[in-house]
């Protein structure tokens, strides 16, 4: 695979949804590049098309027009199992609602991408423990999701996104369900991940409390990229 200056690149993305016979366009020719070694925030009001764009960037949705390249591979040309395999090898996902399997332990949940790739569960869970330890969850590796707090569950989700060393990590509102302190902890972890020059982190968010963690903030409105904001400075601690 040829190395590219960007981890992910979208060109001319258009998405139309069939709405009972009429077509509704939610993305109007979006161009976006996500660079490795940076934490990029994608912000915008509800309904502006962020989630649709995220789904297309990760190959979950197919655009009506345009192309998406990840690590130089045009994923819009991939189909079915090949696309799924590409996703599980090159992308890591962090969801707002964590989406952990309640019957599995934290280590087993974090191991899912490896298991999906054919690694036996026990071996994959062993490897996932290392990832959990990296984000301070070593003591919780054997707990099930119902024994964890929201922040801990999100950290397990982060471990699941990291365990197979993907080149791009996409996060959908990762702090929306968390209190401020826990959200900050999660963002610090993502910030650290983004400091690795081989990883890119893309975060879709509404949460203006986390803007200062970004290297870059892309704004979106009405299905279009409207520009970029300079990342604000981190707020001063209340008790210095």
């Amino acid at each position, binding site marked *: 695979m040829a190395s590219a200056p960007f981890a992910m690149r979208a060109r001319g993305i258009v998405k139309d949804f069939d709405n009972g016979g009429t077509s509704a366009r939610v993305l109007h020719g979006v161009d976006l590049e996500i660079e490795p070694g940076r934490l990029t925030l994608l912000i915008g009001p509800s309904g502006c098309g962020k*989630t649709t764009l995220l789904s297309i960037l990760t190959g979950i949705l197919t655009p009506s027009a345009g192309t998406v390249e990840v690590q130089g591979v045009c994923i819009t040309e991939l189909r*079915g199992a090949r696309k*799924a395999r590409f996703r599980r090898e090159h992308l890591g996902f962090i969801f707002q609602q964590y989406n952990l399997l309640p019957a*599995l332990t934290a280590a087993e949940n974090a191991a*899912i991408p490896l*298991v*999906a790739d054919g690694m*036996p569960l026990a071996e994959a869970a062993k490897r996932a423990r290392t990832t959990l330890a990296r984000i301070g969850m070593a003591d919780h590796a054997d707990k099930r999701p119902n024994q964890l707090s929201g922040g801990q569950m999100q950290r397990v989700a982060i471990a699941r996104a990291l365990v197979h060393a993907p080149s791009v990590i996409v996060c959908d509102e990762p702090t929306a369900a968390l209190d401020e302190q826990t959200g900050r902890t999660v963002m610090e972890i993502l910030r650290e991940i983004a400091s690795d020059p081989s990883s890119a982190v893309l975060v879709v968010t509404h949460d203006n409390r986390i803007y200062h963690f970004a290297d870059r903030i892309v704004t979106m409105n009405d299905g279009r990229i409207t520009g970029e904001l300079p990342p604000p400075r981190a707020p001063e601690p209340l008790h210095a």
Partner: protein
Amino acid sequence: MNLVALKMLLGDRAKYLGLVFGIGFATLLMSQQVSIFIGLMTRTASQIMDVREADVWVMHPRVKYVDELEAMPDVDLSRVRGVDGVAWAVPLYKGNAVIRSNEGLLQQVILMGLDDGSLVGRPPKILMGSLADLKRPNALMIDRAGHQFIWPGEPLSIGRVVEINDRRVEIVAIAKASPPFVTFPVVYTRYSEALRFTPPQRNKLSFVIVKAAAGVEPKRLAARIRERTGLQALTWQDFAWRSVRHYVERTGIPVNFGITVTLGFIVGAAVAAQTFYIFVLENLRQFGALKAIGVTDFQILRMVILQALVVGVLGFALGIGLCGVFFWLTRDVPALDGFVLRWQVIAGTAVAVAIIMLLSSLASIRKVFVLDPAVVFRG
């Protein structure tokens, strides 16, 4: 992902147990009812199947099944014996009689009169006494179920004297006979004694049972006997099936059992399909997450099929096990004598359970397949 699928299944213990017990109940209902139905239908031909020496049964042309009797004149025995290919042919009497025990109990019985010389037509197993004693005058053999029916709770014993159609006879042996469809006791005596015990009638020859000569095919011999004598002649298999078919076609028994078995299937399918569907529905976000992460549709399909397979196999094993235990526990109950769990019933029920699980998982699989993984991005 197989282990993940199993952990997902076992993790939701209430639904998992609900599924296993639902399938188990359906399996039990289907296998037990079909076994009892087959046992009942087999009983309709049990007296034919007990006469193992005979290849061909000859009877009056108007006889439709084994319990419908129209006697032939004795001369028909000689006519049958005169047909080429007959190794031997002996008479068999079958009729109803009433016996009175010393205690004064009146009981209707099925009276079988066996050939005086060979005693062909005797039941397969003698439990007490000697078959040779049946050659004594006024001797009677009774089947075990009949003994238990007339003298409940008493140990099997020979030497009792009873009256049969007002003639005193001694029970000289007790046999293990296949139970008949009607629950009357079956008693055996010699043919000549049976004629003596029963009221005078012009014709008393119920059946002629025939052994084909070596190298003669029973079906061909039956056709030849029909052609030469004008009597009705059937191989024992054909006669047995005709008797079974009569009860199947002329009684409401198959409809009744059919309804129960169908209900078992429907209830099992409904419980399993609904529970399995809800199980998948509740895990839909998780399946969506798996799809988003990169688990392929084929992997998901395998997961759902494995879950259905595990539930199906465990439920089936539970149901068949319970059915087996039922028949084992009731093996000595006279009313259920001959009712067993046959391998054919096990195989048939397995197919029914497989269909139930297939139907149950189809709706769930479809739901997972059409699931848009983008659902995980919606809070």
